[in-house]
């Protein structure tokens, strides 16, 4: 449904989006994650034909975003960041205007508007002036606008920003419900949102894709934190040879000077606790701590987005 190939967007010399490729399939709800300024909004704007890419191509709903822009736009419902609306119009009037722009046939218009209002819980204030609405109500109007022409793809840029907890719950439930009939690509930097709504997530950092995983794989990927009184190099080599270990990384926070603390990344569904304990007794290294946890989205997010900032850290200390 969405297929992005080597997309790059330069603002002057600065690459806002740097050579990213990903695919989103029919009926998926995909979370598009990243710190502020990572390139989420830029990518979405390219996919919705608002701005062009500098390099690369993408197809949305089978149409090329450069050469078949009108067909692409006919097939997407797009909620831009901070949801711009005309403050002087009434809700129903605005949706009628949008429905005309989106080529909803005259006969269907009333029904489609009514349905969109009802699904988004906006029918109660359909005749109010948009300027008098609360933020949550405005967000519902924006979502209703996305649904008017029954698009195959919904692209939502931070749909829950600025909402109170109840409204966030409502919007999340709505998006989940919409995911049954539409493909949803939703950007956010609120991690629990992705955990509760999305089936898959793509983490983007400094214009590049930093991680891409389905929620199921995430829950099946454990990792182990281990602390043992042993020379770090030897411990690392020994652990790396275990079957099922994908990576070993040094972790700060060792409690003794002689002990080493490491984090092991494991293959999905692996359980190495018994193997490690056997290894320790064989080598006669006292095991001080061993903890196995499922990977959380936060772990992945922090690990993939924080590393790249490390080079800046010393500079800050000097200043």
């Amino acid at each position, binding site marked *: 449904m969405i297929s992005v190939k080597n997309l790059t967007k330069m603002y002057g010399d600065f690459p806002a989006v740097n050579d990213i490729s990903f695919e989103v399939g029919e009926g998926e709800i995909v979370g598009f994650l990243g710190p502020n300024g990572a390139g989420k909004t830029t990518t979405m704007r390219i996919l919705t034909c608002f701005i062009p890419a500098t390099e690369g191509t993408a197809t949305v709903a089978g149409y090329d975003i450069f050469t078949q822009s009108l067909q692409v736009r006919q097939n997407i419902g797009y909620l831009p960041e901070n949801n711009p609306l005309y403050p002087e*119009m009434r809700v129903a009037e605005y949706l009628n205007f949008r429905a005309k722009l989106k080529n909803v046939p005259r006969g269907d218009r009333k029904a489609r508007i009514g349905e969109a209002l009802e699904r988004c819980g906006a029918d109660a204030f359909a005749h109010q002036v948009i300027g008098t609405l609360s933020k949550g109500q405005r967000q519902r109007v924006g979502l209703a606008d996305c649904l008017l022409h029954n698009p195959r793809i919904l692209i939502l840029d931070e749909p829950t920003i600025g909402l109170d907890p109840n409204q966030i719950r409502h919007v999340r439930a709505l998006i989940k419900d919409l995911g049954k009939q539409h493909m949803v690509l939703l950007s956010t930097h609120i991690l629990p949102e992705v955990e509760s709504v999305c089936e898959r997530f793509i983490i983007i950092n400094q214009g590049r894709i930093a991680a891409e995983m389905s929620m199921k794989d995430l829950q099946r990927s454990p990792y182990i934190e281990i602390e043992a009184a042993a020379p770090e190099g030897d411990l690392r080599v020994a652990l790396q040879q275990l079957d099922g270990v994908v990576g070993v990384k040094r972790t700060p926070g060792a409690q003794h000077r002689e002990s080493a603390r490491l984090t092991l990344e494991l293959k999905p569904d692996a359980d190495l606790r018994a193997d490690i304990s056997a290894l320790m007794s064989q080598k006669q290294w006292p095991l001080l701590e061993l903890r196995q946890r499922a990977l959380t989205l936060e772990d992945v997010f922090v690990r993939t987005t924080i590393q790249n900032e490390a080079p800046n850290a010393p500079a800050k200390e000097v200043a």
Partner: protein
Amino acid sequence: MSKQSLFYIIGAALCIAGLVLVLAFTSAGLNIIGGVLFLLGCVAGLMFTHAPTIARRELGGFFYSPIAYILMAAYLGVIAFIFCAGIQASGRAQTEQTFGIMMFLSLFICPVITMRLLAEEARLGTLETMTTAPITDFELTIGKFVGAFLFYLILNIPTLVFVLVLSLAGKPDYGTIIASYVGIVLFGAMLISVGLLVSAFTKNQVISAFVSFVATFLLYLVGIMGRNAPGIPGKVISYIGAATHYMDFTRGMIMSQHVLYYITLCVFFLFLTVRTVESHRWR
């Protein structure tokens, strides 16, 4: 073939036929028929696009804000004053001064009408929802133009009262009045196309209004400057000026060269506006 492209072709054919009638024949009757055909062609070509939808929203937008009413009051007030003063001074049922001042006032009014058209969309961010809807940039531009132009026409409708007053009190020259209205309408169309172009460049309405006022006022002044300049440069400069082409209308002449001048400029600036709106996509 879709209904839309069929109507595009019919519209284009009507417009071309109209222009031929206006340009190739000298008979007044044929010229008027040509003008009507041209307008019909425009309407037919745009009927099944999104332009009417956008124009209607835009026109409605004017009346939501107090701007419409303030503009109307100011415009009509000044014209009424000049109208009375002109008749009292001359004692004749003449309209030349009134239409002259209507034109002059349009220089101030039109930038205020056009300042919000695209600048407001850019400021609110609604340009993003607008340009990601399945509409072409041409439809957006023409829709905005037609909306503002219709508002300008509505602004001028109450001035028909002055014609009524004249017809009750004396015997005005209706030919001159019709010609003057044609001039006002064409002049306004040109001013609005300039204002629309300027408003596509900025998010700030004040800048938009001021720059388009300066631009159109220069276009107006250039003609007056050229009148005093000697030789061919003087003639060229005076031809470029907008005022030169207006005078004949107020004297009761609809001359095709003047009509073409305004229509050409209007189309030219609309073309530039479409390109400017498009440029948001490749910047």
